[in-house]
């Protein structure tokens, strides 16, 4: 049970520990990862959708601007329960992008945020945000970050993440424009 509690805080670690059990069994759900329906099938469904979207996003982002990639993701139908919690979506997207990364794809905050944004698109006030922070040394590349907000609250990063403290938001894409 302990590793399940960690599954949401450290999805990658959970993946290593008990991937098969976690994704295929609905039993022993942690309160942190339990969906509104209390059904492990919801998590599995979210993961399958997230994996598919993350694969598409990783492929598209290599050649396509972000807006076009988001449009491309929005063209694909996904099955998302209406009462699913953003936390569950974040967990599924994180696991999916980590898996994609291990398979040679693009595992980045942008991929993850695109997936989360697409899965939560039909909710009110969902936005995909992009931001940057200064480089540590002059001449070095600046650091970018992407995250998803609902009603202005970052739901794709942990509250202790650097995104909430140092990154300055530069762009915000409202998902209602992509329905």
């Amino acid at each position, binding site marked *: 049970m302990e590793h399940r509690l960690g599954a949401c805080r450290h999805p990658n670690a959970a993946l290593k520990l008990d991937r098969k059990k976690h994704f295929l069994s609905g039993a022993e759900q942690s309160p942190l990862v339990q969906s509104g329906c209390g059904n492990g099938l919801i998590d599995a469904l979210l993961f399958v959708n997230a994996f598919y979207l993350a694969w598409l996003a990783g492929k598209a982002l290599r050649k*396509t*601007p*972000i*807006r076009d990639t988001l449009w491309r993701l929005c063209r694909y139908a996904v099955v998302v329960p209406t009462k699913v919690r953003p936390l569950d979506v974040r967990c599924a997207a994180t696991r999916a992008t980590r898996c994609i990364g291990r398979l040679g794809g693009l595992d980045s905050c942008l991929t993850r945020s695109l997936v989360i944004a697409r899965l939560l698109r039909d909710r009110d006030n969902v936005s995909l945000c*992009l931001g*940057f*922070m*200064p*480089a540590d040394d002059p001449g070095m*590349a*600046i650091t*970018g970050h992407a995250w998803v907000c609902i009603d202005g609250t970052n739901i794709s990063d942990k509250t202790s993440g650097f995104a909430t403290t*140092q990154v*300055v*938001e*530069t*762009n915000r894409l409202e998902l209602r424009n992509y329905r």
Partner: protein
Amino acid sequence: MSDVVPANLAAHLRKGDGGPTLLPDGSGVYVDLDGNKVLSLSKTGVALVQQIQSGVDGLDALAQALEGRFDVAFPQALEDTEAFVAELNRILCTAD
């Protein structure tokens, strides 16, 4: 080089995703979402882009703005402005 900012560059900077965003250290970021490009700008670069976006087209006028704001002589400011505008034009308005 022409003594004005190229029309396509001026149009590009004025059309869309807002001005450069200032970072805490005074530098800036200009994100071209459609072109899939991110430019990291120095303080001087931020000032020049803001001037162009506000409607200043002449390189002389841009250099004068730099001269007034930063501690730089006009000839140096003009030279830097020409180089910056040429580089900006190459990055933003030239297909990859």
